[in-house]
């Protein structure tokens, strides 16, 4: 009986204190799962290679030092040779700079353009939204590879042009997402509360809209980066991207495709490089977005 009473008292004491607090103290440090950690490792490795790749490569990307084309690994040719007898490993190490560098630059640029216009369209609405959206739709309506081909045919193929074309093409889809997110957030009560307070548009965008759009946009960034890598690679594959003899993962796959029939791995390695980089980015993004929403909510149940 006494036990019962103490239990009752305990409950009431809990009610009177701040017992409605969530049990766990707030924990905000991002903790990645082992998959996420491994993916970070891979991305960091590739980034290192972007920086120091050329200096650790056994040969220059253009050196035709191999004894023959499509050889399997021998001596210092750890990954064999390509169709011109160049060292595959060296070309991958050199090519990282082009493939990853161009993609990241293009994606960042696409994001700058897309978010600025997307949020502007969402916040302003009306005619501004109408005009930007229709222009965007018309670009979106063209197949991206076709658009790339035409632009390159007209302007010639150089790395700055590649970057600008990729960024414009991918800005259109970023615009769509940013606008949709912006519109969703703009009708939230907390935005209206800020408006009722008399806040200016810029403050609302900066403090209310962007922080809430950041996570979904970051998730999309990883995805978009992958698309751009593949886009640049496919342009190179068609011979319109990075021009030979400079190396780039996409063009390496194309150049060495015929080698597959001889059982050569020369086309597989660059494909593998593309895969590891893009998949790792996706894994990191997945991990972050899963963790940032889930952990605390789970604790509070």
């Amino acid at each position: 009986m006494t036990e019962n009473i103490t239990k009752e008292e305990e409950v009431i004491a809990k009610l009177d204190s701040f017992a409605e607090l969530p049990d766990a103290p707030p924990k905000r440090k991002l903790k990645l799962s082992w998959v996420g950690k491994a993916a970070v490792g891979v991305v960091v490795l590739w980034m290192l290679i972007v920086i120091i790749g050329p200096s650790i490569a056994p040969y220059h990307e253009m050196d035709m030092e191999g004894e023959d084309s499509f050889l399997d690994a021998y001596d210092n040719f750890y990954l064999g040779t390509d169709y011109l007898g160049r060292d595959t490993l060296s070309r991958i190490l050199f090519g990282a700079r082009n493939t990853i560098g161009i993609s990241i630059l293009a994606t960042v640029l696409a994001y700058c353009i897309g978010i600025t216009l997307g949020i502007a369209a969402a916040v302003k609405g009306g005619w501004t939204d109408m005009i930007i959206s229709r222009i965007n739709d018309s670009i979106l309506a063209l197949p991206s590879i076709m658009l790339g081909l035409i632009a390159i045919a007209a302007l010639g193929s150089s790395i700055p042009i590649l970057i600008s074309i990729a960024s414009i093409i991918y800005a259109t889809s970023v615009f769509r997402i940013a606008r949709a997110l912006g519109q969703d957030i703009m009708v939230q009560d907390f935005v209206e509360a800020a408006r009722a307070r008399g806040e200016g548009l810029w403050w609302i965008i900066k403090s209310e809209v962007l922080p809430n759009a950041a996570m979904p946009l970051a998730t999309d960034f990883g995805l978009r980066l992958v698309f751009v890598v593949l886009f640049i690679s496919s342009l190179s594959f068609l011979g319109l991207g990075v021009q030979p003899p400079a190396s780039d993962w996409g063009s390496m796959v194309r150049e060495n495709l015929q080698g597959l029939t001889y059982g050569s791995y020369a086309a597989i390695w660059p494909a593998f490089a593309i895969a590891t980089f893009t998949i790792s980015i996706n894994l990191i993004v997945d991990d972050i977005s899963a963790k940032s929403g889930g952990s605390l909510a789970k604790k509070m149940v």
Partner: protein
Amino acid sequence: MSEKLFEVKDLRISARNDEGVEIPIVKGVSFDVNKGEVVALIGESGSGKTTISLASLAYTKPGLEFSGGEALLNGEDVLSMAPLRQREIRGANVAYLAQSAAATFNPAITIGEQVTESAVLHGVLTQEEATKRAEALYHALELPDPHRIGYRYPHQVSGGQLQRLMAAMALCGKPDLMVLDEPTTALDVTTQIEVLKAFKKVIKEENAAAIYVTHDLAVVAQIADYIVVLYSGEVMEQGSVDQIINHPTHAYTKRLMAAVRPTPVAGMGEAVGSEHDRQFPAIEVKNMTAGYGGIVDGEPVSTILRNVTVKVDNGHVVGVIGESGCGKSTLARVMAGLLPQAKGNIKLEGQELEGSLHDRKLEELQKVQFVYQMADTALNPKQLIGNILGRPLEFYHGIKGKEKHKKVAEILEMVELPAEFANRYPMELSGGQKQRINMARSLAANPEVMLCDEVTSALDSIVGANVIQLLTNLRNKTGVSFVFISHDLSTVGSFADEIVVLYAGRVVEQGPTDEVLAPPYHPYTRLLISSVPELRIGWLEDTMNKREMAVGIARGVEITKVGCPFFNRCPMAIEGTCEVTDAPNRELKNGHIIACHLTEDQLNEAERETQKILKGFEKVGVDKPHAPASV
């Protein structure tokens, strides 16, 4: 009768955190449900009541797992069943009614199809039989036009009707057990009473057993046979409805009972002092008309408020009540400048106020603060509490740096929260705490008027009662005026100094709380008052049958251009007068105004009649209703 249908034995459900540590959510709960019996699980949010009720379907929310105990349905443990067998049981033997019917129905499929779907799917009935049964159920649930309602789409019926249709959906397959999860919580009182009545009737007719999940003791007293009181995943007390309601023994149950707001009667409000009185009212709205859509011929396309005049004195609390769709929130939005009015004017401390937010001065914006209903959406989830509260300080008063921190701590103290909360995100607070932060943000602006839109509606009764207490303290301390919007008459009655009753965008009655809550009543106020459930067993039966003729019927709110909008629900309506001419404002004593075609004497007379009917009925009881003896 006392045959055991469903038995829960030492049920344990737990969650796992990131480190894989088990956190118990339900800690050994046992209770029985007999055939033909309604068992209520009551408790506040987080007590595990929904989690336990879902166990009858062998279902847990993602992230939870059954860690022990049994749930026997007809002697068979549903938790350890093969998944295929569980699937057979769900919908066929156990039916679930979610809280929100609007979210349950698929908007693209007709109601009839959805109601009969599970019965046909489980092979209990053929499509034809199911359609027939559904019609019988519509009839039993007193839905209008039972033959044709099945062909409508969910958006073509009202919220209360949809809730009843959901009951038809659950009952169609003749389940042994129904699980009702807060089915009336989101409804207006007038609608709630209709739904409760229909549920009760149909449960009795079908001799079905039910688990009724709610936090509302007054509702439980009407519908349940047996009550299980839960707190934090444990049973505090269980017993028959009479035992729990009339003789609670556990301290927690007593606490819950105390938080049930009393039936609104005159004299429950606190007297206001005159210490905050000033020359001008804090905010005043005169002959205001407002609505949505463009303005055509000086009137909005969709007019919500028509010719509304409301005055809020300094340091006073004005309660605004009415059913959903009456324009309560619109009134507050006009005052806040979020919706410019079409006609009429607004005055802040005697100064004319522009209708649009953009035209108002910063100082004017600071003086009128709006508090949103849902703290979850009103607080930016990505901002720390410190920043949320600090922003109005900085924005309006230019307080920065250390001083801001100090002020934020002071404001947190004002709403009775610890200062450390400044470093938390809204997600890391409970519902009641978030609502306090929501109000604290408005307080930080140091306003003259706070417009509180249904701030306690989404909270548990104990938490809500605390919030009301907090508001009362704030008012006494700071002299800030409140416009307190609520559909809950008892909350308003216990807190407000004056009450404004809105119906279909018009003020039908206003005046000091004690006057409004005492006769003579406007017929609509009478309906509202009589719809508030009392914490008394048998109240529903007492009120149920004679209610319509005495106080009017529950029906959707229709906004009319001319005449009294309450005409189609009013038991005292004068045909040929009420629907064609606007009701005159009758001024009674102490600034009490009733907009009605009936005179004060007629209203008083009507009230005497109503009392006679209600009283006589209570004495006679449910089983032998006969006309009360004439006096």
